[in-house]
């Protein structure tokens, strides 16, 4: 063997060994917390137990952790997804446009419909009934336990509530609202009855409602809560940055599948904001974005405001106090709603306990904050979630 080759081989083997060992060291000693490419916490190595070793869950956890923690794993995933999404879109662009009225599946959960809308599958009522029954019972007992305050329910229909190919609706909204012991005037919904409705009110690449959808929702909710002066848009701005939303990420097309991001501009009245009990300058970054700034990566939550356990808006007007129990869809209308109330308490039960350190006690919360009205608002995920309990 040539001596030079020995050096070449030593270098080659050394590089590989060092790289693999560095990946292991990173996972063991310097793990990252967030997998930013996937919008989730990164898996980390955990301590083994006899039970977890025997049932294999520890081993599965190690595989997940090493996949997330290996050096450059995030970039590798992004690169692979970028290339395969571009190749697929290149190959199938003709199909996307010729089959606009058919679902074209991109991954287990996301399909393309209407040429360039990323949509979820329609849910089946049979599968949802038990959860909807549970949630309806919980809302009924919540309302019965607090007769002093009116309770309102707003249901946001979206792609999961209708099959765009057949026009057939899942019927979850009708089923849920029909099971609620609330006056009809306390129940309302954003109805989606066709793909055209959906395309007008929702993003192409994200699972949230767009500026038109959220404003329509705001007007509906305001009317539901008894009317009041609605804020009207002072203008409409399309940002320079593009949105590559949650469904783009989910289908592996982050950055490849993106859309223009337009929002209404409002002149909000002055209000203070506290997030999980800590005063915050503002909620969301609307003004920053309008001024050409804002975080580099544009997201729905980054623009309108993220999900928090508790956000309290105080306009100091001395008006009524509103409790909003909801999820991320309400982020876009929280400041709008808060503009018409004295204090607005937005509670996201998925995060409340973890972020405030307190259990959510509805009775105590309503009493101590002088709540005058309670609004439950969300899409089907909100009404099916086990995390969102009202007990």
């Amino acid at each position, binding site marked *: *063997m040539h001596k030079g*080759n*020995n050096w*070449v*081989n*030593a*270098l*080659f*083997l050394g590089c*590989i*060994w060092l790289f*693999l*060992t560095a990946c*292991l060291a990173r996972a063991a000693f310097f793990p990252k917390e967030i997998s930013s*490419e*996937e*919008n*989730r916490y990164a898996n980390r190595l955990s301590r083994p137990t006899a039970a977890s*070793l*025997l049932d*294999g869950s520890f*081993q599965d956890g*190690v*595989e997940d952790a*090493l*996949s997330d923690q*290996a050096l450059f794993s995030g970039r*590798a*995933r992004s*690169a*692979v*997804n970028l290339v*395969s999404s571009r*190749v*697929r879109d290149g*190959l*199938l662009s003709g*199909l996307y446009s010729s*089959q606009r009225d*058919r*679902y*074209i*599946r*991109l*991954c287990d959960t996301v399909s*393309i419909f209407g040429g360039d809308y990323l949509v979820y599958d329609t849910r089946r009522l049979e599968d949802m009934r038990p959860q909807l029954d549970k949630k309806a019972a919980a809302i009924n007992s919540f309302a019965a336990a607090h007769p002093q305050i009116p309770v309102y329910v707003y249901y946001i229909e979206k792609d999961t509530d209708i099959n765009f190919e057949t026009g057939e609706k899942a019927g979850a909204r009708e089923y849920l609202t029909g099971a609620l012991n609330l006056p009809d005037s306390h129940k309302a919904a954003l109805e989606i009855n066709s793909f055209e409705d959906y395309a007008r009110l929702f993003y192409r690449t994200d*699972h949230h409602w767009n500026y038109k959808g959220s404003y329509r929702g705001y007007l509906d909710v305001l009317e539901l809560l008894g009317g009041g002066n609605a804020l009207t848009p002072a203008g409409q701005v399309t940002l320079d940055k593009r949105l590559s939303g*949650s469904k783009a*990420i*989910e289908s*592996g097309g982050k950055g490849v599948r993106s859309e223009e991001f337009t929002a209404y501009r409002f002149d909000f009245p002055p209000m203070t904001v506290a997030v999980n009990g800590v005063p915050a300058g503002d909620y969301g970054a609307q003004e920053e974005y309008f001024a050409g700034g804002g975080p580099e990566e544009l*997201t*729905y939550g*980054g623009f309108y405001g*993220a*999900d928090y356990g508790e956000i309290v808006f105080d306009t100091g007007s001395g008006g009524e106090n509103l409790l909003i129990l909801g999820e*991320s869809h309400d*982020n876009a209308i929280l400041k709008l709603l808060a503009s018409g109330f004295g204090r607005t308490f937005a509670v996201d039960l*998925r995060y409340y306990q973890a972020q405030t350190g307190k259990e959510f006690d509805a009775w105590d919360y309503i009493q101590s904050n002088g709540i005058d009205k309670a609004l439950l608002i969300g899409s089907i*995920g909100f009404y099916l979630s086990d995390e969102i309990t009202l007990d």
Partner: protein
Amino acid sequence: MVFSSMTFLVFFLPLCTGAYFLCGNRGWRNFVLLAFSLLFYAWGEPKNVLLIIAAAFAAYLGGLGMCRFPKAKKPIFAVTVVLLTANLAVFKYLGFLAREAEKLTGIDFGLHEIVLPIGISFYTFQILSYVIDLYRGEIALQKNPLKLLLYVSLFPQLIAGPIVRYKTVEIELSRRSESLSAAASGWRRFTVGLAKKVIVANKVAQVAEVIYSSSSGVGALAYWLAALAYTMQIYYDFSGYSDMAIGLGRIFGFSFPENFDYPYVSRSITEFWRRWHISLSRWFRDYIYIPLGGSRTTRLKWLRNLLVVWGLTGLWHGADWNFIIWGLYFAVLLAAEKLCGRFLSRLPGLFGWLYTFAAVNVSWVIFNITDLRRLAKVLASMFVYRPTDFTALVMADSSVANAALYLPLALVLAFPVVRELKKRVRVPEAALNLCCLLLMALSLAAIVSSSFDPFIYFRF
């Protein structure tokens, strides 16, 4: 644990190679290899590691008995073989037999829950090779039980072969030499195998999956495409695994036998089985076919031998009727080739290749589909033309479009293009290493991206 997992690549391999090469003497190196081999097996099968140790110990005692008590050699040999075979039979076939008996009698034998220990078919055949060769006097007794256990559990070939016979590594267990050039060449081979598995096999697999999982609109052309995709998948999957095993063996100073030799260039089924899973074909040839009389016997006995060997080959691959049918299918083809040998040899080479390739494609369909009704339907659909709605197929899962792009690549590389290129062009080792690093990076990217698992409800 599998070689194409992050656990193996990032956790197991650096620690194992690091500890191995830190040890100075052979004894410690063997100990490290044994410890890591048992850890490798226990990682996926914590309880079944005891089974592999017990099987190796039974072979050790059997071997010891045969040498200590020459007069009782035959019964000890028979008992040992029966014990080892029974171990395989219980874990692999008892559930199947119980299921079939249940269908006939309606009695629930409660044996549905027997979990097949990973690699049991491979390691049982390896242990049997030790016991049989020792009985035949072809190898010396292994007095050190740990060395025998190391042979049985040696992680590179433990769960998917090649089936390394004891006599192949008998000397290397005690005396072998590791070198930088062997380690580098071993790593290159490992990387090629890894890329075959995670880049090619996993991709073309999607084509077959999408077509087989479609409920309607699938016609003859699509089923042939699925058969082709699965044909490529199983080759790149299995030969990739063998490449990885051979490469890892080389890193630790072992020379494992080749297991594949471009099987899809074959011009007859006989040739195909000389090129496909070579270590298994040779095992059956040497330990079953020839002892039964092989082909040097009457035509009837030869036919019997063929049916026995291929029935067993089918069963070895899995405990289900489709595997038995698959084995017998090859028995029929091999018998036909033998009987019509002269006729076949006069036909143009291209015809031989086409016939072989088509027959092998059909064989993998039989191998792949365990539900006999579904199998019959798919086979019928392959031979009775019905148009395919390819648009609907792509719309049902558009990832199939990307995956299909890998099929031409898989087809081309199934021929000895690279080998011929290497013969003609001398590539410096540095360039080979560089290509290997690139291939490794691509493979790692493919592995980590396969765990892409976004969560949309995360603090936007």
